[in-house]
């Protein structure tokens, strides 16, 4: 904290940090420790009993259904991240470089509005649009296509994930790119870089940190989301959050659900850690 070896801990500073330290201890460190402990408990007659047994861990981690679910969740959360980043980019690009200052401000305001309503409500509204007799299939019917099954498929899950993550990803990308020094883009153009090529050569390298953080957020939200895969994906192939739900419901297996939750947290920690390390990695020439 201090470079001065003689200095004692500053009581004043410590006092002001106490609330946040308490908050972290009570609401984060405490529950996590409890969850870790719980993963070693046993369930007897539908009641949790304190124990120290590795049976939950071996049961979960040696089973095919856990790893199927794990890899399915990783893949679909990655797909969601790729989709969100790609769909958001043109919009964020236009808002950052083409739109006026006031248009950009309004757009960001409008992108915040979806967060005012419950995510669950927004997810349910997709039923009307995506069902066999829904709006999309009705319109496709006019031109002689369909009907297509969109609900209870991976497509449905991804639509749900986009509902959750897209506004946030667009905002993060827009803010990142709007802060780019426009001189650098013009300098690239001046040195023979076509407008389209500046995206790869200048804009993405310059907004790398913000883009990676947007992707991390998107992955974390999708990875842990229960609503989209449950209601729009039909949960035939359960994602990890659905697996947690199933595990707790069937036989009150809270300890085994804790194992799944810990595995999720470890994965997200690894993703966030590598992502942020990448985001802030200096150029190769750094000394």
């Amino acid at each position: 904290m201090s470079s001065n070896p003689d200095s004692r801990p500053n009581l004043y500073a410590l006092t002001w940090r106490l609330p946040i330290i308490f908050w972290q201890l009570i609401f984060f460190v405490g529950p996590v420790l409890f969850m870790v402990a719980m993963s070693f408990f046993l369930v007897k007659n539908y009641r949790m009993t304190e124990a120290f047994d590795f049976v939950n861990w071996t049961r979960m981690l040696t089973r095919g259904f856990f790893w199927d679910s794990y890899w399915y969740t990783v893949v679909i959360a990655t797909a969601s991240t790729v989709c969100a980043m790609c769909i958001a980019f043109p919009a964020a690009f236009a808002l950052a470089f083409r739109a006026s200052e006031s248009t950009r401000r309004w757009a960001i305001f409008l992108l915040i509005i979806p967060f005012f309503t419950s995510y669950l409500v927004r997810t349910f509204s997709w039923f009307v649009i995506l069902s066999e007799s829904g709006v999309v299939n009705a319109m496709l019917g006019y031109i002689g296509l369909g009907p297509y099954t969109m609900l209870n498929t991976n497509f449905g899950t991804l639509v749900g994930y986009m509902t959750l993550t897209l506004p946030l990803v667009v905002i993060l990308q827009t803010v990142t790119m709007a802060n780019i020094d426009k001189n650098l883009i013009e300098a690239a153009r001046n040195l023979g870089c076509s407008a389209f090529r500046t995206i790869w050569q200048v804009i993405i390298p310059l907004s790398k940190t913000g883009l990676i953080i947007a992707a991390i957020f998107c992955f974390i939200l999708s990875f842990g989301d229960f609503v989209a895969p449950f209601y729009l994906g039909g949960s035939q192939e359960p994602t990890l959050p659905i697996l947690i739900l199933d595990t707790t419901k069937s036989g009150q297996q809270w300890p085994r659900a804790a194992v799944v939750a810990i595995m999720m947290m470890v994965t997200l920690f690894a993703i966030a850690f590598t992502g942020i390390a990448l985001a802030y990695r200096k150029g190769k020439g750094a000394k």
Partner: protein
Amino acid sequence: MSKPLVVFDKIQKHFGTFVAVKELDFEIREGEFLAIMGPSGCGKTTTLRMLAGLEAPTQGDIRLNDRVMNDVAPHERDTPLVWQSLALFPFLTARENVEFGLKMRGVDKAERKERALKWLDKMGILEFADRDISTLSGGQKQRVALARSLVMEPQILLLDEPLSALDAHLVIRMQAVLTDLQRELGITFVYVTHSQSEAFAMADRVIIMGKGEIAQIGSPKDIYREPANQFVAEFVGRNNILSGKVALLTNDTAHIATPSGDFTVPTNEVRLIEGHNASFVISADLVHISLSDPNDGNKAQCKLISEEFVGSMVTLFLEDAQGQEFKVQMQERELSKFDLKSGAEVWLSWDTASAHVLNES
């Protein structure tokens, strides 16, 4: 006179209702060092950006080597620009920055590296080739920016106030670097600046711009000694400007009656009419100082207000009884003979040939 490399043909530039450039008509000669100078907002940077293709003229044609450039995209032009902010890519090393333009032009890797290193060496910063831009000093960054543009081996190099962020002693150093480079390479330099000392120290010709128009084009000496109008005279500074009415007109001189007295000036080619208003300037370094009344010739009695001391040159700021300001520039060792105190009364005088009548604009 060499043939024009660039022609600005009745160029106008509007941003909405704001007129940045009213009408520009000038030529840039091949191999010259041209400075475009003016106060902020005069349209000098816009002019440079139009040449680089970063702004499109609202009206008129810009021709480079007789080719109309209006519809040529910036990346298809060979007009590298050195930016005021330098605009170096922070995610690349010094060498990668220099290689950027070559990479865009499809030059292969080995040649790119060789040419980049050659230019970094020429700029004296070879040892920093693989350093991150953020670890370089202002002067080093400046050299990387120059190398990045010059490695393209352009016919013309555009510079937008490139020295404005540097310390004073570095500015002088970089001025020498720039003039040497320009002579050696024979490239046309177009240098935009608000600094008179930079423009006059380096340029073969200077364009003075004001409010989106050219106020004067000429050699630094022409502009300094014979400003075309009051705007130039005031902008160039270190000029004494006197205004009055034409009292008497002879063959090649005129008497101009001002509140500070009657003065004789050469008419040159300026059309003067008796009884009409007229202004003239005398460069501050052409005014003599004496403690006693010089009796005849152009003279004014003044009180010393303050002095400004830069190196061996001193600028005196004086005022006569009518409140007319005078500036006198002289060598410090010359001034020390007079031993003047603030408020001292002195006489100023100058040769009639030193005065220069302004066009009324």
